[in-house]
């Protein structure tokens, strides 16, 4: 029994030494295990897939909460790039986007090239929703736009398509191989959700530059970084391994989860 107690004591001593060792190193020990691509991190990221499936199962095609005019108490707070410095974009803006087109390509039967007027002539949807930034803040605003499902129907999505990839006009980052334009993706369930719109109007006015003019995506059941601004092209794909860093979007390639429902 005495031996038994001592071994337990030894265990407790070494356990507390181990724990305090971790504490003393200030958790710097974890830092090196948590970079994108590391084994431990990839394991932890598995939880995001679980969240995605669980929320899909629970949410079905339920709608995000909508608010009233009285809840709009301030302008929509812009975030990320708010004034693209790209020559192509500035040229389009100077002409009030008359030369701008939305390309719809990839795994579709009928590739499209739509003007802003063509989009605005399609049936529209207006919704007062809350924008939740990944940083933690929220802002309520009224968005008007064309349901993405109508555009997808017009282009006739091929059965093997699984994701909608958004390509944007704004440079979000620079790398050795050149400027990186913002890009991001959602699955076809969110793409066909009734509240997923290609917004050209904000709070009853044309969409301002800082909020993504001429066109931005609203994916109301996800976090803000999943709603690209300054849209240029919609590409239907069966996977995104070959696009950017292969994780489905600019922020995803920088360590953010692909599914932003939480």
């Amino acid at each position: 029994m005495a031996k038994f107690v001592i071994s337990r004591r030894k265990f407790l001593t070494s356990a507390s030494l181990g724990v305090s060792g971790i504490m003393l190193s200030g958790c710097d020990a974890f830092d090196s295990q948590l970079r994108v691509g590391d084994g431990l991190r990839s394991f932890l990221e598995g939880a995001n897939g679980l969240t995605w499936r669980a929320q899909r199962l629970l949410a079905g095609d339920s709608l995000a909460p909508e608010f009233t005019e009285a809840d709009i108490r301030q302008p929509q707070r812009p975030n990320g790039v708010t004034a693209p410095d790209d020559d192509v974009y500035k040229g389009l803006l100077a002409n009030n986007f008359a030369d701008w087109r939305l390309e719809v390509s990839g795994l579709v039967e009928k590739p499209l090239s739509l003007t802003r007027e063509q989009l605005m002539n399609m049936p529209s949807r207006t919704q007062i929703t809350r924008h939740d930034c990944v940083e933690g803040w929220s802002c309520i605003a009224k968005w008007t736009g064309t349901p993405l499902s109508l555009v997808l129907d017009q282009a006739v999505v091929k059965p093997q398509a699984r994701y909608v990839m958004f390509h944007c006009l704004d440079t979000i980052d620079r790398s050795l191989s050149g400027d990186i334009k913002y890009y991001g993706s959602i699955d076809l369930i969110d793409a066909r959700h009734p509240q997923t719109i290609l917004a050209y109007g904000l709070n009853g006015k044309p969409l301002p530059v800082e909020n993504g003019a001429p066109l931005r995506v609203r994916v109301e059941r996800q976090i803000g970084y999943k709603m690209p601004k300054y849209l240029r092209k919609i590409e239907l794909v069966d996977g995104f391994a070959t696009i950017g860093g292969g994780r489905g979007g600019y922020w995803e390639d920088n360590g953010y989860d692909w599914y932003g429902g939480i």
Partner: protein
Amino acid sequence: MESVARSQSAIEPDTAAPKDATLIYRQSRWTRLTHWLWAISLFFMLLSGLQIFNARPQLYIGKESGFAYDNTIFAIGAENTANGPRGYTEIFGKRFDTTGVLGWSGPAGRETSRAFPSWATIPSYYDLGTARVVHFFFAWILTTTLVVWLVASLINGHLRRDLAPRIDDLRRLPRDIADHARFKFRHRREYNTLQKMAYGGVMFVLLPLMIITGLAMSPSMNAVLPFLNDLLGGRQTARTIHFIVMLLLVAFFIIHILMIFAAGPINELRSIITGWYRTDPPAHGSKTPQRSA
């Protein structure tokens, strides 16, 4: 540590050990396993949570964050003063200088503007994306553990036997408070009233509230449970409650550790690792009679 161990073995003659009536099996394997899973997941959730908070070190009341109006009740930040940059913490508009810990911290000469200091966050450098990965992984572990514990405790009687409040508990409360205040502990199989309140409060109030307010911040869950934010007072209020409950859990942790040290760390740790707990020897007509269980 060594002296504690020696004095303990002095009152524990080896001959008495195997049939020692004072050594009882107090914590089931389910209680022990879930306890440590919580300890690990709460540790990671706290540190990754503080990192997430650092991305927006303000708390608001309502459905949204006020930018054109003020609904901020708490903020941590940094400002330039005549004495150089200072960190501040603002609670209901009242500002406190918290340089070195909150707002402005880091190694001497290399301080940076960050709400919670590097040593309190995972990762130690600013990385919101990674903190979210860690936070949500352990959110699954924590929630699953809570469900497992609840089912196991219903089946093995832990809830009914150890945690369910009784009339007696209320009667004992004043004396229990007095005992705790004097660091006078009775080592018995049963939890005392304050223990029941603390453990019950964490299991049935704080942790569920943490999970509920966490879910209320998820845009997808808002579509599933739209009433949740109406009930809580809006997403930003839910975020504020999430933060306050975090503070309460940290307070619980500090008291929990203090009480373990005060009541005898070896015995307390043994019971939560092996299940075996040494109770006080039966009183032999002493002046402090044992209270009935």
